[in-house]
């Protein structure tokens, strides 16, 4: 069985743990850097990206997280997690992990009053997926190696690049675990590949 960590500094941690377990993997809440060694894949949950970054900095998580991704271990970022993964953020000079070749705009759909639910088709993952957008970002631009998985009103809201997966919405807020399952399968393959290459 693979072990999937959820970065547990702040945000919707419990919901992701539930989705991972429902998808047949072992879930761990990651609060300390050393725990990154125990996991095969990592979820960066939804929450407040500004807050998460402050906490990531305070505990020296930035480099170890980057390293985790550079070692080709799968990372799945939802909402704030997507912002953490992006190489470029609109109107902002600093970026966070910078692992995915995407440009993301924060709160791109507006404030809380504009938060919404919508049925999406996620390419190769799920049809009619109820996506919950909360003060959500969207992806403005993707690099050549990035595969677009879903769009909403022409805005890119889900994408994949090598071991990295991201959504602007919150799959963890519904009981539909198809995306979590997709990620767990990705983690399984990656674990196998990493073992084979050793």
């Amino acid at each position, binding site marked *: 069985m693979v072990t999937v960590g959820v970065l547990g500094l702040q945000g919707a941690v419990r919901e992701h743990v539930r989705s991972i377990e429902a998808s047949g993997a072992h879930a761990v809440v990651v609060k300390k850097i050393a725990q990154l060694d125990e996991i095969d894949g990592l979820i960066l949950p939804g929450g407040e990206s*500004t807050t998460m970054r402050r906490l990531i900095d305070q505990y020296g998580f930035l480099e170890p997280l980057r390293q985790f991704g550079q070692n080709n271990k799968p990372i799945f970022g939802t909402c704030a997690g997507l912002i953490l993964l992006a190489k470029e953020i609109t109107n902002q000079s600093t970026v966070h992990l910078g692992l995915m070749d995407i440009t993301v705009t924060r709160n791109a759909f507006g*404030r809380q*009053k504009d*938060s*919404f639910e919508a049925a999406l088709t996620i390419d190769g993952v799920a049809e009619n997926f109820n996506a919950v957008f909360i003060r959500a970002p969207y992806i403005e631009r993707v690099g050549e190696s990035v595969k677009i998985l879903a769009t909403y009103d022409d805005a890119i809201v889900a994408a994949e690049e090598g071991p990295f997966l991201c959504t602007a919405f919150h799959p963890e807020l519904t009981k539909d675990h198809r995306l979590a399952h997709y990620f767990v399968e990705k983690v399984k393959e990656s674990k196998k590949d990493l073992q084979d290459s050793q």
Partner: protein
Amino acid sequence: MLVNTRGGIRVVNVGTDRVKRGMAEMQKGGVIMDVVNAEQAKIAEEAGAVAVMALERVPSDIRKAGGVARMADPTIVEEVMNAVSIPVMAKARIGHIVEARVLESMGVDYIDESEVLTPADEVFHLNKKDYTVPFVCGCRNLGEAARRIGEGASMLRTKGEPGTGNIVEAVRHMRQVNAEVRQLVTMSVDEVMTYAKDLGAPYEVLLQIREEGRLPVVNFAAGGVATPADAALMMQLGADGVFVGSGIFKSDNPAKFAKAIVEATTHFEDYELIAKVSKGLGEAMKGIEISTIQPHERMQDRGW
């Protein structure tokens, strides 16, 4: 069903329970700080607050000022909204439909129907289901919690006694709510109706809590958090996060204090870390012993 006409053609759901409750889920493990201007809001954001509550006066100053406490001047709310990218909450008086609608029209991210302000209605709370904006409400026990959920609150906070810097009431209320939830969860279904009658709580909400084993919305702690250890204590008692009102900007060094409270909330079981962040913080806000507060000045008794 509410309809968003953005984009002209496509019809989507805004203001659904999932969207409103989900917003609070994203705040979990975080600290929401009271601020009275843009400068304080920036300090709070910098310290790692997950949201700020824009007010005209913090609770301890409301207590001192006396008189009628109302919704903040919209100028202050707007100033704070323009200053930070984290969500902005604001308080409306209990039952004050128009204050709530005004805040909603301004686009605040969450409204606190709050006992810290002087109630506008001594019988009825707002019908919060009617709004696109989500609401947080105070509670001291499961009865209050379930009634507020029944009215459409998307987030709860235990009341404590605001503006006192005294954690005792916050502890009492968190323990009370959680003890009653545990009691409910172990009941057989045929006992729930009588429990609903005793608590004055909506039956359907209690059934749902029993089924899921927990409240259907996030429950933060509020009212009396004055130190990092207080914040960590509330997390250990089962709070999903912490509201800090007067505690931060009434302390000697707000920026440092705010950071320390955020860290203690994240790592509420790491005592060495809490010791470290608690060092040299300067004086916390001056506290008030609850028994010295006149009964009519107790904010926690407001709301029904």
